């Protein structure tokens, strides 16, 4: 069962994420035309867009609280949006601005929002171990927080993932691994690099439950994730979810996708999760006016975030050496402690 409220929230997250990616695509290309130059234009660096992945982020994050940890891979925007990452600060970060989540130091593959326990890594599967660590902290402190690691199907052959499955399973940690299977690891189709039928098959070898969610369907993801998150929250250990999604855009902006058959692209379009979710809402009695209102609100939020980002100042190069350490070593400039020793140097107690 999924409540009308949760359905509408998932829909709003999904359409926000879709509009966000479509708008970022346009903004990214600004200044990179007519000849694509990755180092030109107003958005720096690579850009990996997640259009077609929305069912996963929206369906899973519907069950999460701010104190639950999420780690996302290089294609993170839809998950960040569903997790409640500050959209304005995230967009400012993607535009490389001073008021971005990381002051322009991180970038789109490295979004960190500690307020909602969201983090990314651009290295394949390397968000899995840190999710296990967040779950370990929850376990040790006896809280009921959980951790969710998102990864792509291309990551399921990577040690960082496989080792994390085992560590989470042997310690019964509250982790949910969500494999977003979009069939493609850049140009490598899963059939050519992985010999198991589905990523869910990885679970059995590590003695944890694994479930495949086919059809790129947000409600099916929602239901599977509900069970997995409940299991984790109740202290019953990790789950592996394997969610079929589709990549509606290239691996990164500028990817010619010449390796990808046209039929595959058409199939991805046909299996778009958003119209499917809209149909489900209609079948629950939500009228088109309401759906349009949700979409309009989502668009406005995205436009506001982009407009905000573009108005933000660029970072001051003088700050570039800040933040390497939380407690910067002062090295040779350190003052000698006085005779009173460390207590006196720290301000003293007397």
């Amino acid at each position: 069962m999924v409540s009308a409220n949760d359905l509408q929230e998932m829909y709003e997250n999904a359409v926000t994420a879709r509009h966000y990616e479509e708008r970022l695509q346009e903004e990214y290309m600004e200044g990179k035309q007519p000849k694509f130059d990755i180092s030109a234009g107003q958005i720096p660096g690579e850009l990996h867009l997640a259009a077609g992945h929305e069912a996963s982020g929206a369906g899973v994050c519907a069950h999460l609280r701010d104190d639950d940890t999420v780690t996302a891979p290089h294609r993170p925007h839809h998950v960040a949006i569903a997790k409640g990452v500050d959209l304005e600060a995230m967009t400012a970060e993607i535009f490389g601005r001073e008021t971005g989540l990381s002051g322009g130091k991180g970038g789109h593959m490295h979004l960190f929002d500690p307020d909602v326990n969201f983090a990314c890594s651009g290295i394949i599967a390397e968000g899995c171990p840190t999710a296990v660590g967040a779950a370990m902290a929850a376990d040790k402190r006896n809280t009921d927080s959980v951790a969710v690691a998102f990864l792509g199907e291309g990551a399921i052959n990577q040690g960082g993932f496989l080792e994390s499955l085992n560590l989470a399973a042997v310690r019964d940690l509250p982790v949910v691994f969500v494999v977003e299977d979009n069939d493609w690891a850049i140009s490598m189709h899963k059939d050519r690099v992985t010999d198991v039928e589905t990523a869910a098959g990885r679970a059995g070898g590590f003695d944890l439950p694994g479930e495949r969610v086919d059809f790129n369907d947000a409600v099916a993801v929602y239901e599977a994730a509900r069970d997995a998150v409940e299991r984790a929250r109740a202290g019953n250990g990790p789950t592996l979810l394997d969610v079929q999604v589709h990549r509606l855009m290239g691996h990164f902006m500028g990817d010619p996708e010449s390796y990808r058959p046209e039929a595959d692209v058409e199939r991805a379009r046909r299996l778009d999760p958003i119209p499917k979710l809209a149909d489900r809402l209609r079948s629950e009695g939500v009228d088109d006016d309401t759906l349009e209102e949700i979409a309009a609100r989502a668009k406005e939020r995205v436009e506001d975030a982009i407009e905000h980002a573009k108005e933000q100042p660029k970072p001051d190069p003088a700050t570039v050496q800040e933040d390497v350490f939380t407690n910067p070593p002062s090295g040779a400039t350190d003052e000698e402690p006085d005779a009173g020793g460390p207590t006196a140097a720290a301000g003293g107690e007397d």
Partner: protein
Amino acid sequence: MADAETGAGVEAGERDLTMSRAMVEAIETEMRSDEDVFVMGEDVADYGGIFDSTEGLLEEFGRERVMDVPISETSFVGAGVGAAQQGMRPIVELMFADFFGVCMDQIYNQMAKNTYMSGGGVSVPMVLMTAVGGTYSDAAQHSQTLYGTFAHLPGMKVVVPSTAYDAKGLMHNAVRDDDPVVYMFHKRLMGLGWMPAPEGPKTAVPEDEYTISFGSADVKREGSDATVVTLGLHVHRALDAAESLAEDGVDAEVIDLRTLVPLDEETILDSVAKTGRLVVVDEDYRSFGVTGEIIARAAESSLGDLEAVERVAVPDVPIPYARELERAVLPGAEDVEAAVRSAIDE
């Protein structure tokens, strides 16, 4: 084979090639003449390498010899080591040098050490080809230029081309070498359609095969006032700086190391003996790296020749994302120019 240590005298069949095309030309020639040479890596087949380092190889050699492999660097880098120990000559691509973290055990505990640990009984004739460098805001996990990391650990030869001509000759030598060779190419030099290269790396390249010996630095510009020692992208930054300095009558010599292991100390010391001023430039982190090492070698052997030393490198921070911040840490031609002026003023 042409005598091509310098390229002088090689004229027949020369064309201007991008650096990526020159690398591929060497690889395909080696693959035609030796069945034991094969290529594996992520996106090396249909995609032709994200940075065009294997472009077109699939069409000629097929999937058995140009293998896309799972995203499992420990496994496929290690498989390269194992196949090499069987006498094959794998060329393994690690898509970004930054990904070394995933598979460093195979690189430095296996690939680099097996020859020594076996008392010379085992050879590992593989090439680990990998992309380095920033300048396009790919941020902290995709922009590093880890020259020092690889050169620091014994047992690997480390090659860094700066031009198409050098890239081809060094690649021929890398494939034929009986030891593991880490071949680090800078993305900005490859001549990619989507990441324009500066003037310089696209050079005339002979159609015939030729090798460039490891440990032979190349004086890319002669000069008498200061010695600029560098490699990779920064050869071109240093040449730009030298042009600008020349307008003010300052004559800088630019040495392209071409290989870090082995290191051509003689060319550096000869130049320093002439100029007395040493400026070392790279795109790696400043501390405990190439710049410090070159200066130490010069100090050990030629302290009396040194009137001034300067180094230009990335301050010890991860590579930031925003353009303004990235530009602030990556050395530019103006930084090289300032360092040379400072060395001369000392």
